């Protein structure tokens, strides 16, 4: 009797949990026209509630509207051609809690935004093209949205498209989004004053890619297993703070943060861990690097042709090589901790009275002959580096390196897998019921 009860209870639990877990879409192929009619009939500035269902096609929004499903998790918009699933042409549009699947338009974004003050909130986008594109659209926002690659998992990321792509779009907020498996997860071109905050980015080419931007804020983001966490190129006044970029090491050219042609940029309190190169800095001037923890990378910091930058309070710990540098003079470097440096502190102020100088010999060598990278850290190169002392006054040098490390900056850990909580919860429940079933159903051994 007990056994029967348990079996019924288990089946009942299974049905309840599966009905809670999976979205309840209602197949309704004729509704694609109805949705466009619903949008057309709505009065400007009204709220449009979409009934549950799967809506196929491409839909255009030409007036200020607030669009949401009648019931959360019940509306799926499905792409059927090469056009964006949602094309927002109007200003003041707000869309929330929709699932959008775009698997036929390789050359189009799932959502195309061309109006100002467009807010996208809690969307779930699966795409084989671009995720969300802003074009000449200002003051918009994307919150709590998931964007995932929806095509073959074997297609290299180099052949995929961008997750969120801004072009000539200013003052956009991109906050708490989760982007996975795209080309550039967040791509900003000619778009100023963008705020990229608390996003989680995984397995994409570049996590955040800035090109010709001004005043971008990149803060509290988490990037893992991308080729580069933040690729910051030809920018001014960018603020990169409190980010954690780790395990960007699969590709031979991967790095935590790359700055190329960056000016007046502030890089503070970031944790760069387990990458091939932590900071890669080239042709960048007048930037400020402070209190960053650069841990367990292959090369901690690589600096080429960069001048007038300030490095202060950074920690380089556990890297195979803490620093390499070439043609980078006139940088203000002091008060950093280098774990491979044995300094001497005469006056007891916690800072070395001897300098930590970065030998440019190997960088210069591989610039001329890249194949010599094979000799990295070999005894012969170390010997030659010891011999090479010319122009020492122009080497990149920390004039007063710290003798002891500071406590490593705590950057809040984040889980990239949004479904882990639900899956974990379900797993625990099923495991419990399985154990109980086995316990009550077991035969007594004679």
């Amino acid at each position, binding site marked *: 009797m007990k056994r029967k009860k348990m079996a019924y209870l288990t089946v009942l639990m299974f049905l309840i949990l599966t009905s809670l877990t999976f979205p309840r879409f209602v197949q309704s192929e004729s509704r694609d026209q109805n949705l466009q009619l619903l949008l057309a009939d709505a009065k400007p500035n009204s709220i449009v509630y979409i009934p549950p269902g799967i809506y196929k096609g491409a839909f255009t929004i030409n007036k200020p509207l607030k669009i949401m499903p009648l019931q959360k998790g019940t509306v799926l918009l499905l792409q059927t051609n090469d056009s964006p699933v949602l094309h927002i042409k109007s200003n003041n549009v707000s869309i929330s809690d929709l699932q959008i699947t775009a698997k036929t338009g390789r050359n189009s974004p799932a959502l195309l935004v061309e109006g100002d003050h467009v807010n996208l909130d809690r969307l779930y986008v699966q795409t084989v093209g671009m995720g969300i594109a802003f074009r000449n659209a200002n003051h918009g926002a994307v919150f709590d949205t998931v964007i995932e690659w929806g095509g073959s998992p074997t297609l290299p990321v180099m052949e995929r498209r961008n997750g969120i792509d801004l072009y000539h779009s200013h003052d956009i907020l991109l906050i708490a989004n989760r982007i996975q498996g795209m080309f550039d997860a967040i791509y900003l071109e000619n778009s100023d004053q963008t705020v990229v905050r608390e996003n989680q980015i995984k397995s994409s080419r570049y996590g955040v890619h800035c090109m010709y931007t001004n005043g971008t804020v990149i803060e509290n983001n988490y990037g893992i297993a991308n080729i580069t966490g933040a690729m910051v*190129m030809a920018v*001014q006044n960018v603020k990169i703070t409190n980010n954690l970029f780790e395990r960007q090491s699969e590709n*031979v050219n991967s790095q935590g943060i790359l700055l190329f042609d960056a000016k007046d940029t502030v890089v503070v309190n970031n944790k760069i861990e387990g990458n091939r190169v932590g900071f890669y800095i080239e042709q960048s001037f007048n930037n400020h690097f402070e209190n960053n923890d650069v841990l367990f990378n292959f090369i901690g910091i690589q600096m080429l042709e960069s001048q007038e930058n300030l490095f202060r309070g950074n920690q380089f710990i556990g890297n195979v090589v803490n620093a390499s540098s070439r043609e980078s003079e006139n940088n203000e470097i002091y008060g950093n901790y280098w774990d491979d440096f044995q300094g001497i502190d005469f006056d007891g102020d916690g800072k070395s009275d001897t300098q930590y100088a970065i030998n440019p010999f190997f960088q210069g060598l591989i610039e001329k002959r*890249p194949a010599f990278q094979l000799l990295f850290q070999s005894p012969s190169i170390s010997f030659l580096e010891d011999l090479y002392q010319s122009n020492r006054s122009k080497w990149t040098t920390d004039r007063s390196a710290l003798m002891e490390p500071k406590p490593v900056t705590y950057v809040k850990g984040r889980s990239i897998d949004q479904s882990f909580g639900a899956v974990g919860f379900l797993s625990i429940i099923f495991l419990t019921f399985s154990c109980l079933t086995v316990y009550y159903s077991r035969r007594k051994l004679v």
Partner: protein
Amino acid sequence: MKHFNISQRKPTVYLAIIVLVTVLFLQACGIEYQAQAINEETDRCTVCNMAVNDDAHATQIATVDGKTLKFDDIGCMYKWMSENDPKQIGMAFVRDFHDLSWLNYEEATYVYDATFKTPMAYGVLSFKDSKSAQLYVKEQGKGKVWSAEELKNHDWKVNREMKKMHNTSNINMEGQKTHSQPSMPMNDYK
């Protein structure tokens, strides 16, 4: 026992040997530069460090000392050319926009428009002949067609100059942000 007797060989064999030796000699004397395939996993732009995609924008230079320098944008290749000794260049290659075949950059035809999206925003595309270049301009409704010689006079400005950035977005004395909006086709989201 059979003895090797060179005088018994047929004249065609001698001829074949002479031709082979001549070809090998000529190959040794004259260097023929070949474009290398793009490896997206490992290749990065010599100038800007971005990954080089195996697409129509990839370019490369074969140097006289046997190195191959790869670039993600024609503009990056021209930047390298302007900063380095031209004697180092064995041959420079660009790609046909449509079939991706490698072309000698001096024999290609170019199309420029500031709004064309290229990896580093230089906005220059390459074609194997002027006919396909003109057709592309006609299809897009914009762009200038240039020969390689005309391209040398190009100022290589990216579609947004950093100096201009100060003007396009800044905070004025009253604390309000101001922007200028460049024109851009509404459907250019590719």
